[in-house]
């Protein structure tokens, strides 16, 4: 993070949470892809856990608008902040935090699991969307290309795919088979489930950004229909995780429909 960004977050911290906060993300129905949807949902869950008001603003060019070129991002007053970590940090800066009661060991745990989700779950989702031929042909290419006119859609699909493959190669994931990927996801879920145990949330004192991120990923995987349903099947093997997802959905997202 550059100095300017740090300063901008510091300065932003001094102002209260503005009323017209907007969360920008791609179109949910026809455009958004699994990994992006997971992150957008995670941020939404986190904002709801913090009881902060926001409105979702779907934009076809949300990714290009984002300062880090990744969704989601929020606009709070003059500040534009992207991605889960950045947004969490920005909100912490305003004195709003879900982790104040955690001791330093728990905080280390939280960070470790957050990065596990980023480095395994998110990468696995990218792999399924962009490398698995069947999913790419039937879902990803249509959804990602849907906002561009012909022939830009093909050009963009290809360039984005190359970009993802480059990232996967750098992390030594591109050479993996689909089975290897599923195994990694299984291991990740097992670790999460063990940490969760019988608790309501990962930490006793209530939900944290880790719960939000887990919810974002798992809920998206469970509810997104894909040609290969194996990811959802793996998650279903862990009833404690499913229970967590249902709990968060019920507590933070169902309320809207009751009104």
């Amino acid at each position, binding site marked *: 993070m550059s100095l300017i*960004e740090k300063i901008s977050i510091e300065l932003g911290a001094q102002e209260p949470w503005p009323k017209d906060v907007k969360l920008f993300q791609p179109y949910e129905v026809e455009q958004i892809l699994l990994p992006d949807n997971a992150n957008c949902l995670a941020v939404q869950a986190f904002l709801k856990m913090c009881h902060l008001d926001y409105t979702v603003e779907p934009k*076809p060019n949300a990714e290009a608008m984002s300062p880090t070129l990744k969704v989601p991002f929020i606009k709070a007053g003059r500040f534009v902040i992207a991605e889960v970590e950045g947004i969490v940090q920005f909100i912490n800066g305003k004195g709003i935090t879900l982790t104040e009661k955690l001791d330093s060991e728990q905080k280390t745990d939280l960070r470790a699991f957050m990065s596990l989700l980023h480095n395994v779950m998110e990468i696995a989702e990218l792999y399924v969307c962009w490398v698995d031929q069947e999913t790419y042909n039937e879902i990803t290419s249509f959804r990602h290309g849907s906002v561009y*006119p012909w022939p830009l859609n093909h050009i963009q699909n290809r360039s984005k795919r190359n970009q993802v493959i480059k990232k996967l190669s750098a992390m030594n994931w591109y050479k993996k088979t689909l089975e290897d990927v599923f195994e990694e996801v299984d291991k990740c879920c097992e670790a999460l489930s063990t940490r969760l145990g019988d608790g309501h949330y990962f930490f006793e004192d209530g939900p944290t950004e880790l719960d939000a991120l887990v919810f974002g990923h798992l809920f998206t995987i469970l509810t997104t229909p894909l040609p290969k349903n194996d990811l959802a099947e793996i998650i279903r093997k862990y009833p404690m995780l499913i229970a967590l997802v249902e709990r968060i959905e019920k507590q933070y997202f169902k309320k809207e429909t009751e009104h």
Partner: protein
Amino acid sequence: MGTVHAKEGPAGLAGENLTESFGSYAKDASHELPEKKVTEIDLEGVKARVDTIHIDGLERTKDDIVEDCIRELFKAKDFQDVLLKAHKARVKLDELGCFKNISVFIDTSKGSKATSDGLEVTFNVKEHRRITGGVSTHVGNNEGALLVGMRAPNMFGRGERVQVEYSHGSKKSSNFNIAFIKPFRGKHRPILTASVFQSHSEWATSGYKQLERGLLFDLGFHSTSLLKHNLQWEGNIRDFSVLGRTTSFEVRKESGLSLKSSLKHILSVDLRDELIFPSSGSFFQLTSEVAGLGGDVGFLKNDLFVQGNYSLKEDIVLQGCLSAGFLTRLSNDLRVSMADAYFLGGPLTLRGFRQRGVGPHSDGDALGARGYWAAGAHLFTPLPFRPGRGGFGDLFRTHGFVNVGNVGDFRIAKDGNLLDTLKHNLRVSYGLGVALRLGNMARLEVNYCFPYIFDKGDQTQPGIQFGIGVQFL
């Protein structure tokens, strides 16, 4: 570039002797047309006809296109006609772009088939090499640029050429362009250009940068000898992104890719006697562009540029310029990008204001508008006391100017008066300055400006302003 050069000769000479003397004069190659002195000996009275035309130095250039250029010469009836037509033929040969050197010799024709008034015209040409290249600088839009280029002229013998150019500008813009150019035969002088380009531009005053990649097909032709048309199709992928974190959100909203496919027609008439400091004549250019034939960008744009010059006294020239543009949205499904909008202000348009300093802004970034108009009036005079007259001093002019203009989303209400809409919130500036001609391609200006009427949101730049470019208002 040698040419026919006529000098005065003793009057009353017999036709044959006269032409002989011209033949020898032609050898001191110079660039002038027959001057007025020529009429003293009444060349029109000297009967002449061209018997044969020789072209020396043709290697890969095909005969047919050369024949087209010189055919007229056979129709000449008197000696002056021969000179004029030989000059015209030389210009046409030069326009083919195949030759780097052309000289003309006129002599009496000899041999058994020679007629009594017969002449023999010889064009000595030197063809370009297969591949030429170079590094040069060029100027445009208040920016200087370094240009590296390579050309393969006259590839198939009929003036076809391929050129590759890369330029890097002082304001971080860069351009790459590969073009194939093919001139055709015919009285409309059509030229077809097909090019692939990539260009990057940064607009600090609007807080964005844009990378464009695309194809351009251009058909240029003359419907009369002065009326020039260009029909273009452009397919262009544009990647719009913000320059930094502090860029206004209004600009950030525009980020992303768009695909523009547009048809454009440019009509121009240029009657000026000179490009940079004309003393008489006018210039007119009308551009219409329709985007939306495929792609996700749709608009209709009409642009006008008019310049008139009037010489008040020797060396004192009054110049008036008007430019205007209007953009219409075609449909709500098609986008109009900020990069398509009109901006006003800066040393090339409305002096006394910062570049793009007039019109709607958000957090200091110019947002552009749907329409604009701007005009300028200049009084050009030579430098006071005329230092360096006849030489270096002639590159300079002093000028006083007044600029008027307006930019905005003009809406023509049904009962409203168009003129009132355009006049509302008018900007005016005036000033004095010195202008310098750079080669025959650009003008450099240093002005002292006084913004006179401006809006409170405008970014004015009173005082010294520096401008460099080709088209000024």
